[in-house]
């Protein structure tokens, strides 16, 4: 309760302060900012020197700024250019020409608990600014940097709007399923979980998990920093081992009045990016003849129609997004408020993600400007509409498998307009979509307030408090008229689930920033942080309803609105996770000698309530050095290198992403008067530890026109957290343990950028990055762990992957496929020797390419990327589109049809369904025209058309080679398995942006 009051007071204060902003007699300066070729620079920052008052240039490079009488000069800066000071004394207009410098070393990079000047950076940190973000069809921030940063794999798990992402920074360094990096938004570390309940309905599998960052408005993000090595991430200690993604949101820069930025866009889908090949109706009829299907003339086998289920389930309605940001301020304070509303329909009917986000942030000063108070408030309301598309469905109960298997000679509807629900096969995909009403609404508040006080000119104290509260509810309804589903048909099913996630952070930091001598600069940081988080959930439901049991008598009242009508009430279920508490002490010192030699040392001491009693605290050190060779006298006049710096770092980071309570003895109540032990006391349980070494260099050639970096890294993860086989007799089949084994990731990263052409009318920039990673598990002496569930009829209990010594994580482990016998039956493992290791699901190579072409006011932005050196297991081809379907009168895949296999062939998981995963994907293309200021009020008007997921080049026969369906087994992750995923649609959008 006290924290709420505290929060209320702190939130009110800045509002009052802003209202007290005094309006002095300011003068107005206007100006234009161009690059060295005379081209206008849009979005450049213009600040009154020595203050935080400022504005930014519009699309034509123009700005106006209201400055106090005391102001002498302006500081103009933009990413990629050197900052410039211009005198304004006695002037009302100025022209500023910025010189290109991709090595703008004074630029501040966010690296955790504050920023450092880029020239002070010793670790491997990649920063992507807003202008370089991916465009179009973005539902979560991590998609903004897909393929943008070398060595960072961002896989959107499926084509569903709001789908979760699998992020691996420098390879996979965990055996566990939750392997994502730590997200930090404006200095607030997030929990990483999501309050949106997941639904598991018997017979329909588990719906995929959603992205936990959906509550963020992508338009509010100013930059994303990715901390890749231990030098950078060690400041996050026990939570830093999988890397850290720091998101910085936009702050007001305007002065002299209110600025309004607005944007609107309309989008739709233009078909599949890539369609899974199944037979058309004419091919299907041919197949009936080819395979001599008995009773081929019966209406159960040949319905005489021609339908395309994969097309029928897709959606092409127009969706819209609106974005509005208001900002303003003066030397006494600044504010920014933004609003975002969008209703993206999913590519598949009756799915979608609607999103309403409001933010309010600001800064105000007090106590002779020694006190700075910053506040940020984000409120996001995300509605997520699902249909029956699950990860692990068996033989039926999934709209995608139903569409793939739909007999193309059947009509979707009966003559009376009701759904045709044949008893063969997996059901009518449109009926499935129509019978499912499944919607989750998640409300997330992320609020933080911080006060910084300059105790001495060089010493600043900062207190940050933040609260992140997320509440999700989900109402799942399966109508009883759906026929052929045990537990649904004739009964109906309604389930209501609620979940809550509440995290709080208190951070105290002291920063010291001073020149010790003329040449030695010290930046020092010390701090204490307390972070706590708790998750709770409940669920209840019923079956056996009296309504919507036949298609003729459907009423628009959901079961979840009247659960009391259900004959059978499910047992209610409530769950409260143990509260997670982490307290940490941390310190960092950066020494800079003459901008030539730099040394960074970091230490974090983390204590976590999750750790066992014997290991409550862990220490995470790192050290890094940098030699800026180009600042040495002998290099100063180099004609080749404008910049050259060599970096090296070493450090230890930790990971503690396992369920709270895993170290404790636990007894649980379950239904109907039973109570039993569920977990074993383990006082030794601790974090997982990653030791990493990084060598790299940064380079700039031709006065910075060509720039980039190279890194080699070697990461070794030990004390791997995993669900070890319990020692029987045991309360559960597994317990969390620290495994004595090493998971190593070694590789290199290379990036290069170039300003190929730079003139006032035409410019052409290009960027390319590539990374190579090799993943290997060694010193593992335990039994092979099977993972990667293969699902579908005939493959129950089969697995595609295994965790084993001297193999990459989740290596494919399948029975060998040996062709077909004379009867067209597949021969699998004829020697009966069992599965063999058959390849790597971890991409060895990741690459990304982007280019921007500008001709006068027209610009074209193209982003693409891909991965190579890995295999995908096509579970869809194994058990959904397999040949046997034809004899049951369900559709089969074209690849099955084109093989010599006969319908009598058994369904088996084998190496036959491993396919090369290599791909290149054109992620997005955006063509923009900048009108500039079109009237006195409308400024900076631009229009664009953009396309996302336009095409993919791959030999993979499934929907999308960028796929990560969660087929984990007992908490062990799976990778690169396709199973009837939510397909990826090609999306097109048009939009316009303007300012007022």
């Amino acid at each position, binding site marked *: 309760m006290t924290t709420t009051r505290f929060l209320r007071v702190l939130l009110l204060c800045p509002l009052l302060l802003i209202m007290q902003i005094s309006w002095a007699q300011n003068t107005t300066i206007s100006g234009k900012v161009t690059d060295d070729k005379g081209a206008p620079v849009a979005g450049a920052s213009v600040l009154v020197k020595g203050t935080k008052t400022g504005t930014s240039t519009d699309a034509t490079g123009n700005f106006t700024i209201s400055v106090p009488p005391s102001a002498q000069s302006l500081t103009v800066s933009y990413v990629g250019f050197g900052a410039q000071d211009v005198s304004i004394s006695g002037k009302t207009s100025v022209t500023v020409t910025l010189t290109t410098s991709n090595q703008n070393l004074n630029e501040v990079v966010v690296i955790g608990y504050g920023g450092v000047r880029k020239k002070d950076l010793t670790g491997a940190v990649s920063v992507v600014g807003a202008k370089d973000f991916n465009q179009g069809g973005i539902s979560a921030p991590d998609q903004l940097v897909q393929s943008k940063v070398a060595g960072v794999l961002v896989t959107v798990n499926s084509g569903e709007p709001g789908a979760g992402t699998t992020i691996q920074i420098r390879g996979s360094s965990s055996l566990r399923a939750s392997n994502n990096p730590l997200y930090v938004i404006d200095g607030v570390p997030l929990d990483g979980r999501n309050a949106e309940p997941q639904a598991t309905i018997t017979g329909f599998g588990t719906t995929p998990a959603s992205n936990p960052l959906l509550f963020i408005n992508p338009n509010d993000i100013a930059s994303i920093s990715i901390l890749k090595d231990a030098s950078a991430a060690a400041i996050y200690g026990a939570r830093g081992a999988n890397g850290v993604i720091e998101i910085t949101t936009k702050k007001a820069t305007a002065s002299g009045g209110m600025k309004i930025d607005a944007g609107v866009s309309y989008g739709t889908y233009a078909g599949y990016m890539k369609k899974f090949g199944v037979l058309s109706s004419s091919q299907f009829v041919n197949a009936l003849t080819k395979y001599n299907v008995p009773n081929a003339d019966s209406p159960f086998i040949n319905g005489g129609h021609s339908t395309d289920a994969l097309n029928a389930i897709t959606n092409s309605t127009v969706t819209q997004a609106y974005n509005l940001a208001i900002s303003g301020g003066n030397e006494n304070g600044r504010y920014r408020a933004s609003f975002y509303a969008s209703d993206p329909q999913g590519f598949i009917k009756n799915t979608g993600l609607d999103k309403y986000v409001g933010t309010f942030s600001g800064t105000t000063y007090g106590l002779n400007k020694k006190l700075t108070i910053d506040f940020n408030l984000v409120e996001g309301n995300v509605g997520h509409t699902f249909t029956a598309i699950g990860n692990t469905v068996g033989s039926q109960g999934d709209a995608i498998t139903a569409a793939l298997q739909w007999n193309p000679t059947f009509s979707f509807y009966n003559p009376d307009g009701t759904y045709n629900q044949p008893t063969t096969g997996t059901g009518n995909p449109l009926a499935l979509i129509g019978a499912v009403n499944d919607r989750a609404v998640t409300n997330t508040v992320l609020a933080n307030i911080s006060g910084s006080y300059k105790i001495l000119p060089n010493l600043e104290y900062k207190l940050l408090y933040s609260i992140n509260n997320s509440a999700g509810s989900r109402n799942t309804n399966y109508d009883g008229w759906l026929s052929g589903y045990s537990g649904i048909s004739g009964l109906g099913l309604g389930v209501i689930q609620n979940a809550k996630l509440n995290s709080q952070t208190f951070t105290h930091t002291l920063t010291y920033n001073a020149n010790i001598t003329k040449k030695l600069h010290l930046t020092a940081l010390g701090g204490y942080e307390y972070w706590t988080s708790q998750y709770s959930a409940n669920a209840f439901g019923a079956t056996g309803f009296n309504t919507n049991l036949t298609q003729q008598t459907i009423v628009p009242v959901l079961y979840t609105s009247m659960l009391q009508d259900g004959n059978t009430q499910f047992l209610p279920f409530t769950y409260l*996770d143990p509260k997670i508490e982490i307290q940490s002490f941390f310190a960092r010192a950066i020494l800079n000698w003459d901008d030539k030699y730099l040394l960074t040392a970091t230490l974090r001491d983390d204590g976590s309530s999750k750790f066992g009693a014997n290991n409550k605290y862990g220490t995470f050190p790192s050290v890094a050095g940098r030699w800026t060779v180009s600042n040495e006298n002998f290099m100063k006049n180099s004609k080749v290198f404008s910049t050259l710096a060599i970096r090296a770092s070493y450090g230890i980071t930790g990971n503690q992403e396992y369920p709270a309570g895993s170290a404790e003895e636990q007894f649980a109540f379950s239904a109907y008067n*039973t109570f039993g032990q569920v977990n074993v006391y383990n006082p030794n349980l601790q974090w997982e530890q990653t030791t990493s070494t990084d060598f790299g260099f940064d380079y700039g050639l031709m006065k910075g026109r060509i720039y980039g970096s190279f890194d080699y890294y070697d990461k070794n993860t030990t004390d791997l957290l995993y669900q070890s086989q319990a020692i*029987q*007799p045991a309360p559960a089949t597994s317990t969390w343990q620290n495994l004595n084994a090493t998971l190593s990731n070694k590789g290199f990263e290379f990036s290069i950028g170039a300003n190929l052409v730079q003139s006032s009318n035409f410019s052409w920039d290009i960027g390319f990055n590539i990374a190579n990673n090799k993943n290997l598990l060694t010193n593992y002496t335990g039994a092979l762990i099977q993972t990667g569930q293969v699902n579908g009829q005939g493959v129950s209990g089969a697995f595609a992957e295994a965790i084993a010594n001297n193999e990459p994580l989740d290596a494919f482990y399948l029975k060998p496929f040996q062709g077909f016998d004379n009867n067209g039956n597949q021969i699998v493992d004829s020697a009966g020797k069992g599965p063999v290791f058959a390849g790597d699901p971890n991409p060895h190579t990741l690459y990304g390419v982007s280019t921007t072409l500008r001709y006068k006011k027209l610009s074209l932005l193209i982003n693409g990327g891909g991965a190579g050196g890995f295999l995908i297991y096509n579970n869809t081809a194994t058990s959904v589109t397999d040949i046997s379907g034809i004899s049951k009168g369900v559709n089969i895949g074209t690849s099955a049809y084109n093989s010599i296999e006969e319908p009598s062939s058994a369904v088996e998981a084998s190496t036959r369904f491993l396919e090369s995963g290599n791909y290149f994907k054109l992620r997005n293309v955006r063509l923009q025209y900048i009108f500039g200021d079109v009237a006195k009020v409308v400024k900076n008007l631009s229009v664009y058309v953009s396309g996302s997921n336009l095409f993919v080049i791959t030999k993979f026969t499934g929907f999308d080679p960028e796929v990560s369906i969660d087929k984990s087994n007992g908490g062990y992750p799976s990778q690169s398995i396709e199973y009837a995923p939510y397909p990826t649609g090609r999306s097109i959008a048009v939009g316009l942006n303007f300012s007022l």
Partner: protein
Amino acid sequence: MKLYKKIRIASVALILFAAAITGCTKLNETLGSNLNSTQTANAVGAAGVQLLLNAAYVDLGTPFTAQDHVFSLEENSTDESLVPTRGPDWDDNGVWRVIHNHTWTAAHSQVQSVFESLNKLNFDATNVLDFKPSAAQAAQAYFLRDLSLYFLLDMYGQFPIRNPGDNLLLAPKVLSGDSATQFIITELTAAIPNLPTSGGPSIATQNAGNTLLMKLYLNRGMFANRTSPTFADADMQQVITLGNAIINSGQYSYMANYFDNFNATNSGSTESIFAYANTSGVSANNSGPDAFWMMTEHYNQEAAYVPNAGWNGFSTTSDFYNSFGAVTPLTGVTNFPNVSAINNPDTAVDSRLGGRYYNGATNISGQRPGFQIGQQYDVNGVALMDRKGNALAFDPTIASNMIETGSNLEVTGIRVPKYVPDFTKGTTYYEGPSGNWVQIFRYPDVVLMVAEAKMREAAPDNAGALALVNALRTARGAQPMPSIALVDASNVDDPGTMLAERGRELYWEEMRRTDLLRFGVFNVIWQYKPTDAPMYDIYPIPTADLSANPNLKQNTGY
């Protein structure tokens, strides 16, 4: 003044900072929904021990009601059951076929899940003893633990055992061989006097305890030497004494209709000594044993009321069917298209074969429990079709390699819905769970064990054994046998044997493998099992569990 203010603010900031650091939390973890052991001892108290005991009872559900647990290891590994690969269905990477073939390995998923589900029962039962149970509660906990140990010993030849309060991170000791049998016998014998004497088959009564004790004495010679078991006279006398006490208690009698022991209202069965309770439509921690009929029925049987009621998998061998005797031709006992034919013309035929009109199932869905051969009919007597439009007529012939590829692959194999589908809701949709209680110990088993022990005692009493067997056969509508042998080593399905009589009475009740081992014929060749080796007399210790506990020793040959 200015300097003073500066210092004041700096001090406040530093104090705040210091206060935050010194005021830090101890990071003790408190559980949200669950309790730790101290809280457990305080919160559940004496009466609450019953909750812990209930959890152990509920642990019986997984191993004994799922088709891929004890059922698969005890039945699919024998002549009584097999799961052919039906085109695309039921291959599941060969897991079912290798069980029937006797070619399984230590990595087999069912071998692992049975080991673990039985040990969960072992664990939860042991845990009860750590919370000051009453004498009766402790005795039930011992019984449940001993039941799990008996099955572990039978299947794996060894078991891990912990004392209450042991450190669970340390590997427990492992018992094997005759000392393992003796351990269970000693513990159970001590517990039996404290078991309740009444309370129905869902709780461990003294009769349940004595039945388990009979099984231990009867199988002791087999556990000691699986390749050629010998039976000590003292053990056989124990079986006879314990069995006679149960028979003479008068608490049990044969049911008039054999299948009433297996229907959804079988909680009142007078043959039930120990059973796992279920309630129709109530998911009391388990889903009921509907897998027992779904695993065998064809997809299109009862489709009208129970969607996907059939998974079209499990079948029996024709040789086993023939062990019922020559009076039962392979075309099936009775195939009445006429649903009103309540009275069977062939009352002389062994009623345990089923295939007859059964009130509560046939009049609702056309289903006839028991062995199903030939054409099947719906409730109106209309012949059913398979999914390809062929007649749904079960064909006893299964492909020799158990891989069905022909156009009749959906209908091969004799089906055995021994448990009667739950139609307690009549013709409305089946919601599950089913209310059938799972029979773990049944009175006829006790009778047959006594009869068998009489044949195995030092001075065999074959006449006494035959009298018990024929009394049972008469109750089942079968002709009395003129004589009886223990086993025919050349034909496990020879109808004139005690082994065959056990099969006829107790088929698909999760004990055939143990019987074949005790009768010394588990390794002989039978239908769809072309070769065998003595190593398969014991299942391997699952690879994962073997690496978790170094005290476990892998069984010979694996």
